[in-house]
């Protein structure tokens, strides 16, 4: 593996997608402020065109400009990340001059960056034309006379992506936390960005308070770990954990980190702020929270649970096995049951995303149940690979259909709808394609074949079952008591999926069989970028279901980069 020091040769090329975002950040700061201002050299009459300030031109005061910039830069970052997959992944580590590894570029981190950048590109495309210029402005294009406010929004969106990228690359807990906080703080502001609505401000405030408590607890755990081992690097912590992991200090730290990341993936009972936040935020931001932000949380959990507190190190079941299992059971059941009664589609999607978090926790639990004794290592490695592959696949396709569903809601938001199920009424008549897309997103969320949601759920369930039956396979005799209890997690997932069909189908029912609400007749407001984003989500939702093989192979290479590190 190649090692590069910061600002040494190859540094910028290795981190090209991230630096594109940094450039985007500066572009967003500078370009919308350019005007015809001139600078007079003191004591002379010579005026040099200075460009910053003054009367702005038509181009740089265009309200759509920041959104388009953000979309373009995210797309470039996404493509650059994707390019690194072709022609072989050039695995690189960024090290300090003293040799400590800070960042690592491999299939795993790049795969997650694809998820982040993809989701954020779609969200920024969907937000073009959607952010009013002032807090009082009517939500119409004529209210967008000025782009000052939009700039703020997209700058925050870009810092979110930068933070997430750092989380993906981080090789020590310190870097990971820096990235996490950068992304988190940006999303806190993004959630409350619609300060003209009461819900927006309140939601942002609550999300911030609960989130900062969780961050605080996590940070406390982190400092305990540092106190215990004197290092924050993943490899060092892994070694230390394997030797003296059963002491009080690392275990308490592990619990606290679980709380911190539990909030990020919105696991029950740390999820409470999530429904409020999703409902208060604009739909694209809520979509980012439900997909990219969640993927970031899962990424953190994978790093902490599988690398630092690696189950392999503890010979047999991991210490966190039972805790995570209970957490996943509570999370998926709570999410589904709470979603049943929600009449606000955004809250419903929030709870559904809690349920999905439960499924993912169940998958991670299964890895904790693997047996690492002599003679089992190869098979356990295979099974762990299968589960992590399923997880990554799930997180990727989640961007297609969950974000897609939020984008559809964002179209309704432009007519102050999207907060009640009734506002979706008659959508099939008003917008047949958008309604069909929403229906397919719902079907995919429910896991109906042949959509990608089905494949992802199938992969997760089969991964868990594979783990549960491993011991049985070795003994080649089916004894029920030999089946590991994580098998019940798979069973519970199936039951929960069955429950979830109820509230997903209800959306279709309302769209196709109810009449539009009064004042909501006719097609929705125009907006080419958001429509294109929805169609893109639709195509990928179907494509990754029918032609799942390619994406599974990609996810497997990413999973291999993580699990192969054992």
């Amino acid at each position: 593996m190649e090692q590069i020091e910061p600002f040494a040769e190859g540094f910028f090329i290795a981190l090209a997608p991230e630096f594109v975002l940094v450039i985007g950040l500066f572009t967003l700061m500078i370009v919308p402020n350019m005007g015809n201002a001139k600078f007079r050299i003191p004591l002379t009459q010579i005026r040099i065109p200075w460009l910053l300030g003054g009367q702005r031109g038509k181009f740089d005061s265009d309200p759509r400009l920041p959104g388009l910039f953000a979309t373009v830069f995210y797309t470039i970052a996404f493509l650059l990340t994707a390019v690194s997959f072709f022609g072989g992944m050039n695995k690189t580590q960024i090290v300090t001059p003293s040799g400590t590894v800070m960042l690592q570029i491999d299939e795993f981190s790049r795969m997650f960056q694809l998820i982040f950048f993809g989701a954020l590109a779609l969200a920024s495309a969907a937000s073009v034309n959607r952010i009013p210029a002032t807090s009082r402005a009517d939500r119409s294009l004529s209210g967008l006379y000025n782009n000052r406010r939009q700039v703020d929004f997209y700058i925050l969106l870009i810092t979110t992506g930068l933070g997430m990228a750092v989380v993906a690359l981080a090789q020590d807990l310190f870097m990971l936390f820096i990235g996490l906080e950068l992304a988190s703080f940006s999303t806190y502001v993004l959630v409350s960005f619609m300060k003209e609505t009461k819900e927006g401000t309140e939601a942002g405030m609550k999300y911030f308070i609960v989130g900062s408590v969780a961050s605080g607890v996590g940070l406390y755990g982190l400092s305990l770990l540092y106190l215990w081992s004197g290092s924050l690097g993943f490899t060092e912590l892994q070694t230390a954990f394997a030797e003296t992991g059963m002491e009080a200090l690392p275990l308490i730290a592990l619990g606290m980190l679980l709380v911190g990341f539990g909030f990020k993936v919105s696991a029950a009972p740390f999820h409470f702020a999530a429904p409020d936040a999703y409902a208060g935020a604009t739909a694209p931001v809520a979509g980012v929270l439900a997909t990219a932000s969640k993927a970031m949380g899962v990424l953190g959990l994978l790093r902490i649970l599988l690398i630092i507190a690696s189950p392999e190190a503890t010979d047999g079941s991991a210490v966190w096995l039972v805790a995570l299992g209970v957490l996943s059971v509570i999370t998926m059941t709570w999410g589904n049951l709470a979603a049943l009664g929600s009449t606000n589609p955004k809250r419903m999607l929030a709870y559904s995303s809690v349920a999905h978090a439960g499924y993912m926790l169940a998958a991670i639990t299964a890895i904790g149940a693997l047996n690492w004794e002599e003679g089992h290592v190869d098979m356990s490695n295979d099974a762990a690979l299968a589960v992590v592959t399923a997880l990554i696949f799930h997180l990727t396709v989640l961007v297609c259909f969950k974000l897609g569903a939020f984008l559809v809601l964002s179209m309704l938001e432009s007519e102050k709808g999207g907060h009640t199920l009734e506002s979706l009424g008659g959508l099939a008549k008003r917008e047949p394609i958008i309604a069909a897309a929403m229906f397919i997103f719902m079907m995919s969320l429910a896991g109906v074949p042949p959509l990608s949601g089905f494949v992802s759920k199938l992969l997760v369930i089969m991964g868990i079952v594979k783990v549960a039956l491993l011991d049985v396979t070795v003994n080649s005799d089916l004894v029920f008591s030999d089946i590991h209890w994580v098998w019940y997690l798979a069973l519970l997932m199936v039951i929960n999926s069955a429950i979830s069909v109820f509230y997903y189908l209800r959306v279709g029912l309302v769209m196709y069989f109810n009449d539009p609400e009064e004042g909501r007749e006719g097609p929705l407001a125009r907006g080419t970028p958001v429509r294109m984003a929805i169609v893109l989500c639709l195509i990928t939702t179907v494509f990754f279901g029918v032609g799942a093989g390619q994406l599974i192979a990609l996810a497997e290479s990413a999973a291999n980069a993580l699990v192969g590190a054992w």
Partner: protein
Amino acid sequence: MAGSGSSETIQTTALEYAPYILLLPMLAFPVILLLGKMFNGNKMWKDGLKEGGLIALPVMAASLLLSLWLMVDFIGGDGRADTSGWTWFTSSMWDSSQTTVTEITLGFGVYIDHVTVMLLFIASFLCLLINTFAIGYMNTDPINDNRNHRFYAEFVLFCSGMLGMVLADSFLWLFIFWELMGLCSYLLIGFYYERPSAAYAAKKAFLTTRVGDVFLMVGLAVLWSLFHPHTAAGQGALDYAVVFEPDNLKAVAETSSSSLKWALGLMFIGAVGKSAQFPLHVWLPDAMEGPTPVSALIHAATMVNAGLYLVARMFPFFGSEYLYNDLADLAFIIAAIGGTTAVMAAAIAFVQHDLKKVLAYSTMSQLAYIFTGLGAALYLANTLHWHEYLIDGTINPDYDTNHAIVIVAFGAALFHLFNHAMAKGMLFMASGAVIHEVHHAHHHLHPHDEHHEEHPEELLMLANYLHDTDQSVFGFFNSIDLDQSGDVDTYEFQKALKHADIADLPPWEIQPLMQALDMDGNGRIDIPELELTLGRVHLASLADGDDHHDEFDAQSMENMGGLASKMPLTATAMLVGSLSIMGFPLIGGFWSKEGIIANTWRVALDDPRFLYPAMCVLLGAAMTGFYMSRMWLKTFAGSPKTDVAAHVHPTNTWIKTPLFILTFMTLGAIVLASLGFTHWAPDESYKPFFDGKKSFVEGLVYELNHAFANSDVFFFALTYIAIFLGAVVGPGLALSLYGGRLDEDQESMPWFAPVLAVNQFVKSRYNWDNRSFAQSGFATALENRLYFDHYYDMAMLKIVAAFSFRAAEADSSVIDGTVKTIERTSQQISTRLRSLTTGSARDYILMAALGTLGLFALIWGVVA
């Protein structure tokens, strides 16, 4: 399914593209439906794209081209059964029987053999022609305006169902596409769903075929359980590649040949339902409620052929040496069902006045011929040693003779399937052309009749009852409305009719009445709606008085006659088609029908049980001659019976083109016969096209020699008896009763002249009076379709309806009760859980703190 195919599979390019034959129409389905929804009423959509017709047309043409490519590739190659697959995804799965984790492949595979190729060509060729016809038929009728996209979308889905069923490489996929066709037939027969009769017919077709499908499903399950132990890793037990594998067949035959017989028997019942054979034939005549292209599609190209295809597909079981003589009984049952239906349907066709109904019964009867032929062929295959090597590996001394017998028998049945499909497709399209033009002429002459509003009699009586007893609709139904819902459901309406002493109707007859009442079409009838409609019905009855208005029936042959001069091409097509169905020498079906009759008698010589189907097909030949001639003469010969028929004009090019093509296809059957279509073999041992042994002329001489100068005295006599019955007795009787010379001033095509001259001659010479027969009880029974529908309805009412009321009660109280309890409990828990989300950040942090403590407890509990 795919993936478990044999290893020696030869991949050709045509085979790789084979899935597109069905994928293209399947993809066209959503495209047409969505575009139709989006651009409904748009001028470009309507005139430029014919509401989707011109999207479907190139798609079907592409399917046909791919099919032809595949056929040429297959026949030009070694003609060996071949498979190819497309994999969706592979995943590992626990297999308890093998105690291993095995790879399971999900996907679709294609299986090509002679039977596939024949059916594939018929289906894709006729689908294309019917599509062409439909553009001329559907798009010119104002009643279909702005909803043809629904027709074309369902049409292409139907086609893809048939093509998929033919191409599928396993019985499971066959069943899936079989059911897809069932669904589409329901949708298409009920295309005019606002007509109660169409809705009823659609339901009848769906439910009757469903009876067969249940048996088919059970049969497949038995088949699966038989072959499951003999498959690798227990998968693909219904794949043809597995099921027809001689080693597997041997293993199954040794242990459980009688179970296999049952499995095949049950599957045959499925075929009986799909192909409308006795006793599951009742749906087919009613299915004429669909638009005519649908009739052509169901009766020629697709649905009814599916049942025949399934039986033909079973050939490897019957032909297997390991099952020698085990399945002869089943073959007899197949032939006997065929024979029975052939005579029964032909008899009912005698008395039908509706042009399309005659054709419907004719279809039933001709399909029965094919079943009889298949039964005979399967019997021969099962009771003769026809393989090159005997079971013990020695050379079979009777190989040449027996092999030729089996192949000719099977080939006759399949060739009749081909001939019938072509002729019947043409006949339906021609009848469609006639109906279309008669309808147009009627519309032209009597424009006002179209808007006559018709109300079911029961509604009229109910309205009058309420008026007479001076009850308000609201009061009356409020006393009936048992559940106080404000809506009236079927059960309540039934009670209302009973209460008013009008009728005690079964629920399926209530449904159409209810639909007539449902004004806003939301599927519910509330009392204000009822009040309005019944009021209107009552007013209409006052206005009408007793002056009952005879509805003009554009499909009735009583309103036609003399059309030969008005629609020469259609009349020609109809004539050629009729002659083909009758088995008139040298034309179309003659070549195959003779083969079926001869082979049934060949079996009858060996097994006296077969005398029954053999007599049936011989009798049926005469009956076919009669009713087909009757139909043609009543429609096209003589003078016009109504003023409408005198004002009919030739039809448009879209309709004419397929008729033209099919006329030559039917006349050209002699060429196909010479090319060896009569020897369409079930195995790769025989090549149908020029196989180097015979040239075309030699083939022609061989066929003619075989048909007219058979060296075997018995078959020589049989041929001429059959020709005499089918081409002289039957038509002669019809010629003496119906038709006549065209009107003086009417000119027509020269080839009608001899027919009409003979008609005139026979009619004037033997002008029999058939009134005594027409008034006899037997004719009445025939007109009532031998009371099958009646008895089925009675049985339904007595047994099924009674049971279903009980079941409905149990459903609403027990099953719905349980589901609703679960739902209510879940909702309560949901409310309770969501009430924990108080909206106060303090509470959230409190919960998070509790969670943290819980986590610590759990981790600590594990470590300590």
